[in-house]
């Protein structure tokens, strides 16, 4: 047993984050940790590293038992964590980052850059990774930066590697090289604790899976003995309906949005139509121009050519404010940076886009504000003790629901979702899908950008694929096929 947690309990004022959790990690295995947001995964990792000292219980690393650990000590014992936010310095080279704080010296103060670059290159070679050790970290893509972070842990002789949602920021191709790296690390005998919301990769990589829910360990399973449905059931504690709930309504013939030869903001000559009651999926690689197109429609950026017609009327929003007035809503891709006002309460977040409408003589009608916020809290099942909580205290899924509520409150006719379920748990995901269905069933139109292939195929009536700012393909639902879509996305 290389890593062992015994009866770990962690209490915060008013909350029990972990409740009597015991966990054994066997040397050389890939152990997946799954659970909804707020299940206690982060607290569990922090207990392993010593960043959090448990209220009760002990942690053993390589046979040494601790009731109070600290990050430096756990690192010395061979435990390393790859967090979602990297600890890399953009302005330094790859090799300098790998040996940061442990620079190889020639004599006295002089740093031996050559030796560091050679050692770094040797590590990359072990894993068949093609990274120039002398490149600046800031010039690498997120995927490569992550591989550098892992190489750094390897160079420190990490025996246990904890990875916290490593694939979340990666493109499909980058994720693939991550999986290969994980498999190679495992082959070298490194023990890996792998946290993820993506079920496919958990089944592909892990030997065993531990499910956490509400701060408690539900079960540890052998990956080969379980399947997706059972796992999801254990995670959410209730049976979920189909992953992508079916829609039973007729898409109207009436065109709601028509885009004619629009160019600008990195997209070229885009023409498309969305009908009332239709979900149009926008697929493509990161940087293909999907978000950029959404920005044009929503007035964040200005088009340089072409026409946008909504409800038969040409629109030309110069600001999001004007787009909202035309009945367009955009649920942006980055929840924390673009969606939420973290220091503002939930009620204030929900009402933010309609404040002027519910004001008289500049004064906000607080009764009306509360009524609307309560309505959406109920209908969208936003889990919170009260609406005066700051939104930053909510879990990711509930934050996203509150942000969607903000947009629904504007009573839009076209809703653009940009990566609506990124980083949120299965339960909240399914609720968001149901919500998208109810939007189109009530005659609204939805434009859905998603990098998750299954999601875009599961939810769309039609898919348009973008590639380098241009439309490279269009598919009707009956023709949906992962390989075809990838072909359109990557061709050229």
């Amino acid at each position: 047993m290389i890593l062992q947690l015994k009866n770990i309990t962690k209490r915060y004022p008013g909350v029990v984050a972990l409740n009597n959790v015991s966990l054994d990690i066997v040397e050389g295995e890939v152990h997946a940790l799954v659970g909804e947001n707020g299940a206690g995964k982060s607290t569990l990792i922090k207990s392993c590293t010593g960043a959090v000292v448990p209220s009760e219980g002990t942690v053993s690393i390589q046979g040494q038992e601790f009731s109070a650990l600290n990050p430096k000590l756990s690192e010395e014992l061979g435990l390393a964590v790859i967090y979602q936010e990297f600890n890399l310095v953009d302005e330094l080279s790859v090799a300098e980052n790998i040996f940061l704080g442990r620079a190889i010296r020639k004599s006295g103060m002089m740093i031996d850059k050559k030796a560091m670059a050679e050692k770094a290159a040797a590590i990359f070679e072990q894993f068949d990774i093609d990274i120039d050790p002398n490149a600046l970290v800031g010039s690498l893509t997120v995927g490569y930066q992550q591989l550098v972070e892992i190489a750094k842990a390897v160079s420190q002789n990490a025996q246990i590697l904890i990875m916290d949602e490593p694939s979340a920021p990666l493109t499909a191709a980058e994720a693939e090289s991550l999986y290969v790296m994980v498999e190679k690390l495992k082959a070298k005998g490194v023990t890996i604790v792998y946290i993820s919301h993506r079920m496919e990769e958990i089944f592909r990589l892990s030997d065993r899976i531990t499910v956490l829910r509400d701060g408690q360990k539900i079960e540890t399973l052998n990956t080969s003995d379980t399947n997706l449905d059972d796992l999801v059931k254990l995670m959410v504690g209730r049976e979920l309906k189909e992953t992508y709930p079916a829609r039973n309504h007729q898409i109207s013939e009436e065109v709601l949005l028509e885009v004619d030869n629009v160019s600008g903001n990195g997209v070229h000559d885009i023409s498309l139509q969305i009908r009332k009651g239709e979900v149009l999926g926008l697929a493509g690689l990161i940087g293909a121009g999907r978000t950029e197109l959404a920005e044009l429609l929503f007035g964040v950026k200005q088009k340089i050519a072409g026409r946008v017609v909504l409800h038969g009327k040409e629109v030309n929003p110069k600001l999001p404010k004007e787009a909202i007035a035309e009945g367009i809503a955009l649920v942006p891709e980055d929840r924390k940076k673009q969606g939420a006002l973290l220091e503002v309460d939930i009620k204030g977040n929900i009402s933010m886009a309609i404040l002027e409408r519910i004001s008289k003589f500049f004064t906000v009608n607080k009764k009306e504000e509360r009524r609307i916020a309560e309505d959406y809290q109920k209908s969208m099942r936003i889990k919170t003790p009260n609406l005066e909580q700051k939104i930053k205290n909510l879990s990711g899924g509930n934050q996203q629901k509150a942000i969607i509520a903000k947009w629904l409150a504007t009573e839009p006719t076209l809703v653009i979702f940009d990566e609506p379920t990124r980083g949120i748990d299965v339960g909240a995901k399914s609720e968001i899908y149901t919500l998208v269905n109810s939007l189109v069933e009530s005659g609204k139109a939805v434009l859905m950008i998603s990098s998750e292939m299954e999601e875009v195929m599961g939810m769309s009536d039609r898919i348009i694929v973008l590639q380098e700012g241009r439309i490279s393909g269009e598919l009707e639902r009956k023709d949906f096929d992962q390989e075809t879509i990838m072909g359109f996305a990557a061709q050229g």
Partner: protein
Amino acid sequence: MKNTDSTKTVGSVAASIGKTFGIYIVLLVLMVFFSIASENFLDSHNLLNVARQVSMMGIAAVGFSFVLLLGGIDLSIGSLITLVNIVTAWLMVNAGWNPVLAVLISLLLSAGIGFFNGWIIANLQMPPIIVTLAMMIIIEGVAYLICGGLPIYGFAKSFAVIGQGYIGPVPIPVIIMAIVMGLGMFILRKTYFGRYFYAVGGNEEAAELSGINVKRVKYLVYTLSGFFAGVAGIVMLSRTNSGQVIAGKNFEFLVLTACVLGGVSVSGGSGKISNVLGGVLVLGVLSNGLVLLDVGDYAQKVIRGSVLLIAVALDCLQHRKKA
């Protein structure tokens, strides 16, 4: 087990009281201290005097708080006070204008300069600290140009009412401060654009995407900052009865200190006028008490600076704990 839980609750209650009333607890401690140290402190005449002394700071602090909420800063308010002093005095004395008209024109001028600050900041996307620093220097120069550095005096008697008059026992400047602060609270708590100040200061991109016209919010906030500085300038002119080029010297830093003491975050997005009032009063009580104790001007500076440093340090520590 039970014991630790109850001490924890007591601790967290104390912490939340400290957070809500922190600056007023400091104020209370200061007042108790000065009451014991000096027999002249706790005297209604003296306390009203303190209130009158801080009223200009309090008036300007409302606009300044708005600017800080937005994540900006307005270094030009001290010079604006000087300019309003000189222009109003010049119009009344040299041009022979009616005081009411002179005051209105000066307020319009100060609001206009504030708007100009906001326009540059929003449209050229220059850092507020640079824009308002440049404006501070320009305005001060203009004030010197108008009066040649000499004081202007000899106003109509009626003009002195604003700064020196009383309604009942309450000095009129204190009443003006109360009205301005009330207006500030109303804007922040009740109006939609007050909410926008917090939104833009907290997360400009999210605010813009939520349909807020961020540029217009910036124009409004800097205009209000200029306007309230103008009001403070008029009160000051009426109190001193002469227009002077040093009238508003370093006033911006005094007001900044008061706002920060009152818990307005310099990085934007959080703060309350009710606590800013606390910050203003702490500074007033401190300087009044120190004078009563015969502490010299120089030593007062040391103490005021230290208070600012400690207040911000406590705020930062609290933030670090949360993270």
